[in-house]
Structures are given as structure tokens and as C-alpha cells.
């Protein structure tokens, strides 16, 4: 029996692993390798994403697992000199981002894909009144004149829940609290009514009550505008409450992914398990870094042949050290994992320990 109960009843598949038709963002084997002083870093390695409008994909993983690089690379925000190699494909609404030039990318950034950054203290310009920071992209993309842009800025401030928006519009970031600044960042990102919003740890720098407000705001705006959202987070509590699907990244690779409730209720990859164990309780203290996993994240310049997590994995086997496990449906679950020796599903002791991922058909049969 399936203890997860989160899969789509008609297809039996998690929404994220649909074959990509109708999805707004579609990545296949997407890789980004960067130059670093110590050699080439495989910051993102073979990532697949399917994200439809109106849905939220959470991306979780330890610090340095490649979450930010993934998003920045999609938008062409990495310094050109730093990129050693890009692989795989990335399509946004049918547009092949890999062959899109900088000028055309600029028309997508801010216009069709909005981005919210982690720290609203540093991501807003301290010397410009907030309305001007909201207005600049409006003037550039929507060709609004100064007056119309200011009016739109005040309306946007209102729509992200800032009281007395006309007065606040003329203020500088230094005159606002952290939560209010993050609302301003969101107003900027939403100005041109984007199809996709990327929020790179939007609440890590905020205190708990403000976090909840901001995440609630993002949920409301996503529903109102039928936006797709990529929500990067360290916080599994946030992920649990505010995403449809989740992708767990480890060392630039996808470790496990699927419907959020399924993955969090029955993690199969030992790394995901460890992340969950490291979080105090799902709904307890928020905003903590995922620190409590033993061992160090691997050196991305010298990734092992086998599974990148092998050195820290409690369930490691010989095979893990020589052969990297592919991402495949995990027997007994509704989601995909990259593991030779997945954590047993709670309550089903009959799973073959150390069994190879079973091909999809087998899984379908076994669950039928």
C-alpha cells in the first residue's frame, strides 16, 4: 500500500515528473560548470525540472549545493568569464534559454521571470527611493512614463501589503524594516507580471513571524496571478507548507524529487532523510541552516566517480563508491531518487535492501 497518498490519482505520478508538455520551465540534464581558483566546479550537474504555471517547486540542499547557481545561470546572471561549460537543455515557455543572447535575455529577466533575493538589506539600492527601484523595470519593459510608473509603483506597494503606500514609496530602504524591504523586493519582481518567480531564500534573513507573512504573500500572489514559483530554501518547514513539488540537491545533482508531501513524509535518499533529521521539527524552529549532517560537503572540483554522498552516507555500499546512481523512480514510493540503497518506506519491511532502482514499469506494476 502507498502510505504517501500525494500522487496524482489518475497518472500515479508526481506532478513534477510529467513529461514536460505544458510546463513553463523545462530543464533536461541541465549542467553548469564554473571556473574556480581550485579548478572547474560542477556546481549544477544534470538537473531535470518541469514546472507548470500556478505551481511551486521548492529547491532544497545544503549550502553550496548549487541552488543559486542554477537560478542565476538560467537568467544569464553569472559572470561570463566564470562559466566553463553549460550542458543539457533549458526551455522557458518554449524559448531555448541556451541560445538566447544577452539582449533577448534582458527582455525576459524582470519582464517574464522575476527574482527575489535572500537579503533585502543588501539587495535594494540604499540611495534610491523605493518607488524608483520599482519604477525602473516598469519603465524599461512596459515603457511607462515617469508618472505612470510612479503610480504603478504605489499600487504595487499596496498589493504586497505595505500600509500607507504613497508615503512609503518616497522612502529609502534604510527607513524600512526587513520584512517591509522584502515586500518591496517582491513588488519589484512582480511589477511586470512575470510568468515565473524565482525566490532565492526569500525569508532566510527575516524573523519567524515575518517569514510566515512573506511566504503567505507569495502563496497568495502565485494563486492570484497563476505564476510558477521556484522557492529556494534551507528550511524544510517552509518547503512543506509552501510548495507542491520539491527537488533535493546534493553537490549540484538532484538527489531526490517529487511531490513535496510524498518526499517529506517518506524520504528514500539517505541525504534527504538526514536533512529531515537535522531539522528540529517540521513546524518547529525555522530558518536554521541544515548543519547537523556529519561530514563535509564534497569538493565540487573533484567529485568521486560514485555517489557524491557516499562518504557521509550511513547506508553506503561498495557500489555507491564506484558508480553514481541515476535518478529513477524509487520502488515503493511515488517519487524519484538517486540511490542504490534507499531508505525503506516506513512500515514496509519487505523492500529489498540494497536493491537497484527498479525500472518504471516494475514500479507501476508493484503499486497497481
Amino acid at each position, binding site marked *: 500500500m502507498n502510505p504517501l497518498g500525494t500522487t496524482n490519482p489518475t497518472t500515479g505520478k508526481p506532478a513534477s515528473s510529467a513529461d514536460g508538455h505544458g510546463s513553463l520551465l523545462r530543464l533536461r540534464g541541465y549542467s553548469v560548470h564554473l571556473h574556480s581558483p581550485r579548478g572547474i566546479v560542477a556546481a549544477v550537474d544534470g538537473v531535470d525540472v518541469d514546472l507548470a504555471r500556478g505551481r511551486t517547486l521548492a529547491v532544497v540542499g545544503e549550502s553550496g549545493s548549487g541552488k543559486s547557481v542554477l537560478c542565476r545561470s538560467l537568467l544569464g546572471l553569472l559572470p561570463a568569464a566564470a562559466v566553463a561549460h553549460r550542458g543539457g537543455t533549458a526551455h522557458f515557455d518554449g524559448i531555448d534559454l541556451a541560445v538566447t543572447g544577452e539582449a533577448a535575455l534582458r527582455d525576459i529577466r524582470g519582464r517574464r521571470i522575476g527574482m527575489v*533575493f535572500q537579503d533585502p538589506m543588501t539587495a535594494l539600492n*540604499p540611495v*534610491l527611493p523605493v518607488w524608483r527601484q520599482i519604477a*525602473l523595470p516598469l519603465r524599461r519593459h512596459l515603457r511607462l512614463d515617469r508618472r505612470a510608473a510612479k503610480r504603478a509603483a504605489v499600487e504595487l506597494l499596496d498589493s504586497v501589503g505595505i500600509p500607507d503606500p504613497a508615503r512609503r514609496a518616497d522612502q529609502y530602504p*534604510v527607513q524600512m524594516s526587513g520584512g517591509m524591504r522584502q515586500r518591496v523586493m517582491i513588488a519589484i*519582481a512582480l511589477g511586470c507580471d512575470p510568468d515565473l518567480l524565482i525566490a532565492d531564500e526569500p525569508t532566510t534573513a527575516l524573523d519567524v513571524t515575518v517569514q510566515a507573512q512573506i511566504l503567505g504573500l507569495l502563496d497568495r500572489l502565485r494563486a492570484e496571478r497563476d505564476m510558477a514559483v521556484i522557492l529556494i530554501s534551507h528550511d524544510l518547514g517552509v518547503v512543506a507548507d509552501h510548495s507542491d513539488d520539491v527537488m533535493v540537491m546534493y553537490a549540484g545533482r538532484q538527489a531526490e524529487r517529487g511531490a513535496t508531501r510524498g518526499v517529506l513524509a517518506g524520504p528514500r535518499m539517505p541525504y534527504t532523510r538526514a536533512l529531515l533529521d537535522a531539522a528540529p521539527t517540521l513546524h518547529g524552529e525555522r530558518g536554521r541552516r541544515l548543519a547537523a549532517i556529519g561530514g563535509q560537503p564534497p569538493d565540487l572540483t573533484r567529485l568521486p566517480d560514485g555517489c557524491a554522498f557516499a562518504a557521509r552516507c550511513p547506508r553506503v555500499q561498495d557500489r555507491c563508491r564506484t558508480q553514481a546512481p541515476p535518478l529513477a523512480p524509487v520502488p515503493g514510493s511515488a517519487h524519484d531518487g538517486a540511490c542504490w540503497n534507499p531508505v525503506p518506506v516506513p512500515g514496509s519491511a519487505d523492500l529489498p535492501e540494497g536493491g537497484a532502482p527498479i525500472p518504471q514499469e516494475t514500479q507501476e506494476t508493484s503499486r497497481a
Partner: protein
Amino acid sequence: MTTRSLLARAGQAVIVLVSVAVATFALGRILPGELATAVLGDTATPEQIAEFNRKTGADQPAVEQFRTWFTGVLHGDFGTSALTGQKVSDALADRAVPSLLLVVFAEVLALAVAVPLAVWAAYRRGKAPDKAANAGSFVLLATPQFAIAVLLIYIFAVQLGALPATGYTPPEQDPAQTFRTLLLPAVTLALGLAAVYYRVLRAGVLETLQQDYILAARAQGLTPRQVLFRHTLRPSLLPLVTLVGLNFGFLVGGAVIVEQLFAIPGLGTYALGAVQTKDFTVLQGTVLLIAAVYVLVNLAVDLLYGVLDPRIRHAR
């Protein structure tokens, strides 16, 4: 900036000016040699000297002399040059005009060149234009001012005959000619200033470009021009503003080489002459005026800081 801190700054300015007045006055008494012998010549009899000192007030106690002079200054009277008989306030008014015009002109030229170049070079860091501009600024910094002046005179006055080599026409006579006479000296000063301004601003822009809000601005799809001139320039300007202010104050009285080479009757030349002839009344007045310019420019710089950076304005 708050009213309170403005008042505090004004109070400081007054203290600075009074201190400068006392110091220059004291300096005049310390310098070797006497005005009387300078004016009357070495052959003057003791009676002549005593008579001269009585007429100029030099026989009074120093404190009394200072009081007389400073009271005059407060009423706009800087005294009279014992050497030339000219009223110092009149001379200063005449001399200040070419000095101020020259410095404003030079600063404007320097900024007009340095600001766009620095922003562009920082944006294209490490590329050919950046390298060329860096090399150019080094050459300018290493070239002595008189060499630049002589070169400019040779090219534009001697060879092309396009501009006067030396001299100055006051604006009330012929403003166009004023512009022409000040152009070469202003360029001479500006080249040296631009080299420094370029380097300081380029460093500031490079630092600003590392900030998160620049990445955010790029993520908003803004054009490089918008990112550079709307988001980057202003936060990068603070060190430059300080430097422009300091140079302004310095050059009003310190552009002696350029004033001399181009025969411009400015404050620097006036002060230098006063030192050489021990004309203390003139010296005191000139130094006080230059100090006042410094103080005013500094006040303006502080105000500009608040305009450029709201964090300063809104800090408690």
C-alpha cells in the same frame, strides 16, 4: 542633515576661521624682517622707521593690532597694503574672480572627462579601453604641471594660434575672451585632476558593482546603461565628492604654477607676492579668504553627502 548638525557645522566653521585668523596674524609676527625696512629700504633712519610704524600701527602691542585688524575684517575691511596703498579687500575681490573661475572651470572639465570614463572603464574592467584609460591616467599623474602647460601653449597658442598663450580678460570686459584666456590653464589643471578623479571613481564603481543590489538590478532586466548610471554611479560618488571639495579649496589659493605660467592675476600669485615682500596685511587677508573658501566648500561637501546617501540623512 538635521538642523542641529547644520548648526554644529556652522559653529565649527566659525571656530576654524577665527583660529586661522589668529594663526596667520601670529605667523606675520614670526617671519623674519620688518615691513618698514622692506618698504622704506635698508637706508631708512630709525626716525623714519618709527614714523612708519606709528602710521601703520606696528608700534602697538600685538593683541591691540590683532583687535584692530579683526574688527575691520568683521566689517569687510581687510586693511590697506602698506606697500602699495591698495585696500586689501578691493585687491582680494579682483583676484578672487579669476581664481574661482579658473578652478570651477578646471573641476567641471575634469569631472566631465573622468566620470564617464571611470564608469565605462570599470564596467569593461580588464578590457582594452580600461587598460588604455589606466595607462593614460598614470602618464598624466607622472607629468609635471608645467610640462603640460608648456605643451598646451606650444600646440594651441604657438602652432595653431587658436588661443592666447597668456593673460586674462575680466568677464565684465568680454566674457567670451575670458573663456578663451582661461581655457588652456583650466585644461592644464583639469588633466591632473581628471587622472586622480578617474582612478578614485573607477575604484568606487568597481566596489559598487560587487553589491547585491547590482545583481538584483541586472535580474530586473535593466540595460547596462541603467545599471551603471541609475544604480551604480551615485553610491560610488562619495569618495570623489570629498576629493573634489579638497582640491577646490586647495586650488583657489594654490594654483600658483598655472597662474604664473599663464599670467593670471589670481589669489595664489597675490599671496606669493605678499610673502616675498612681507606684506602682512595682504597675506593675512588672503589666507583668511582661502580658509573661508575651504570651510564653505567642506560644508557643501557635507550637504552633498546627505543628498547622495540617504543613510547619512536618516541616521540618528
